[in-house]
């Protein structure tokens, strides 16, 4: 097996705050091949965005401890110098942020912001960069790109801003694209268009994509592999079909169970996961999900509250971090997945 394009090993990110140490990511590992898409799912505060920022090296080094290993094409990003990272950012690896209005500079035209990245990494002239910006805007489907290139972000609609953001991220044909909830603020139609756009671009350039979202519908649409995060750790991973069709972890069951279904009966209430996301300042002992887990008491010896379950890998990257036995999971999943009549 050849080395993966992006390899994250035992990533730990902690912030020192006035209240104490916040362990936002606590031992995360994953691989990503060129041309494929990894979907990272999890609720707010599960460490998804923190992971992304760590890959790009955008954490403030003074207040953040980042440990582990992030290899991009064999190069360790965590030991790279700031200058080396500046050469990679926007060029080899780039990022699409969630809120395009806040993430685009209000003071510069869309064309300038796209061209700026291009000029920085290719040394192109102002004129060439502008031509490239127009081309990128056309490619992401902005009508009249040669006119809109001189607009400011506030003159764009929400969907167009997100497209401009994508154009900016793709202007140097990056090999790794990190999309941090790129469609969350958009309506479903625009969302679908953006997803199609990303898929087209991936086919064209063989880009590896890390797609972060809390929307399982989006994951089902775009991801090859799925990684479910909870409280800064990976609780389950596998291919899209494995995770969505035969989920193994009670948290994933909970996520799927809280989704409305189009083909099920309409009078079945949604079943949300009880409780709140864990505090990363004082995370629960043992399995971080155990205070909210309906099955914690089924595990012998109350190990859920004391031992942190390791991520058991059973071939092909399939893994689950749970103390339940394989038989128990099969039994409970069937129960859980069957809608309870009211």
């Amino acid at each position, binding site marked *: 097996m050849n080395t993966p394009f992006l390899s994250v090993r035992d990533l730990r990110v902690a912030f020192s705050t006035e209240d104490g140490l916040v362990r936002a990511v606590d031992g995360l590992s994953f691989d990503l091949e060129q041309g494929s898409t990894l979907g990272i799912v999890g609720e707010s505060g599960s460490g998804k965005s923190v992971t992304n920022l760590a890959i790009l090296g955008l954490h403030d080094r003074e207040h953040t401890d980042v440990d582990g290993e992030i290899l991009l094409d064999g190069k360790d990003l965590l030991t790279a110098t700031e200058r080396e990272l*500046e050469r990679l950012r926007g060029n080899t690896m780039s990022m699409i*942020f969630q809120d395009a209005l806040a993430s685009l500079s209000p003071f510069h035209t869309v064309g300038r912001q796209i061209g*700026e*990245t291009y000029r*920085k990494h290719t040394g192109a002239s102002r004129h060439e960069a502008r031509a490239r910006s127009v081309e990128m805007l056309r490619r992401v489907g902005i009508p009249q790109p040669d006119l809109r290139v001189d607009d400011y972000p506030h003159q764009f609609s929400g969907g167009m801003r997100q497209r401009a953001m994508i154009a900016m991220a793709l202007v140097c044909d990056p090999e790794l694209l990190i999309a941090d909830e790129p469609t969350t603020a958009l309506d479903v139609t625009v969302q679908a268009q953006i997803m199609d756009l990303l898929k087209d671009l991936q086919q064209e350039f063989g880009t590896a994509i890390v797609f972060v979202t809390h929307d399982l519908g989006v994951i089902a649409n775009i991801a090859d592999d799925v990684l479910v995060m909870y409280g800064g750790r990976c609780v389950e991973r596998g291919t899209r079909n494995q995770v969505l069709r035969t989920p193994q972890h009670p948290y994933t069951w909970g996520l799927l169970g809280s989704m409305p279904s189009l083909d099920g009966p309409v009078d079945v209430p949604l079943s949300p996961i009880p409780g709140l996301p864990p505090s990363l300042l004082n995370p629960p002992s043992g399995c971080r999900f155990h205070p909210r887990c309906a099955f914690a008491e089924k595990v012998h010896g109350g190990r859920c509250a004391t031992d942190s379950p390791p991520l058991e890998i059973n071939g092909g990257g399939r893994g689950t971090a749970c103390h339940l036995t394989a038989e128990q999971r099969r039994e409970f999943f069937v129960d859980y997945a069957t809608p309870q009549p009211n």
Partner: protein
Amino acid sequence: MFRFLVRRTLGALLILLIISALTFVLFYVAPRDPARAACGKLCTPQTLALVRHNLGISDPLPVQYWHWLVGVFAGRDYTGLGHCPAPCLGYSFTNHEPVLGLITDRFPTTLSLSIGSAVVFVVFGVGTGMIAAVKQGRALDKIASSASLVGSSLQIYIVGVVAMYYLSDEWHLLPRPQDSAGFTQDPGAWFKGLLLPWLVLALIFTANYTRMTRSQLVESLSEDYVRTARAKGLSRRTVFFRFAWRGAMGPIVTILGLDIGYLLGGAIITEETFGLHGIGALSIKAVRDNDLPLLLGVVLTAAAAIVVANIVVDAVYALIDPRIRLA
């Protein structure tokens, strides 16, 4: 941008018109003979008659104001005193001179004082504020914010006098402030004469700009678009000046404009403290002499300074932030 400026200028003219009318009315509702007042302290019966005639006291108030207003745009003849060319802001019977001439004589001093000190406090205030924001070191932060509190509590008539006593008279470090022939006549004397007032004014203003620059920058440095700029591979320096500083500038420019407008309107106490003869000293003289036409002119000058400063601020703000241009 052009339409924006035209609109703002028209608005400003309207404001000045209202202020002049209000000031005009105030003089005439005062319970005293306006001609007697305008005539000044050393008033002879002959001059009083002349004043009475030239002010058109027997006319109704709106007509008098109308005459004054026409004078501003078309000039005005004063019987026995000569012609006052447009823009004629009135005639100072005490000084035997049109009001505008008195003001334009004094304005360079006030302008030099205001702009000079603004340069000093902007350079130092914004500079230290930037350092404080980048380092975000606690020591410098705390020094800056307490210094700002002390700075804004200082009074010019104390600091100015103390500074003059020690820095000029005792230790001979800085020349004593004095009026000069102006920048164009003798730049050296101009600089020496104003150095101490600049520094003292800057002492009072600098810390405030440090604090403001720091807090604005700390806020804009945490903006999402600054993070995006870093994610594009731009260097820290580029990100700082092209994005973060751009976002922080607006509020600083606003306050700066108001401060300069205020200083241009006549730093009365400052000029009095340092014995400089600018607009501030002129307004004190106008009050002492009961010189109403001059006082009207000085009030209008101060108002115009603030109004113009506001237009400049708005224009600069629109240049900085394209979102403003729509409004």
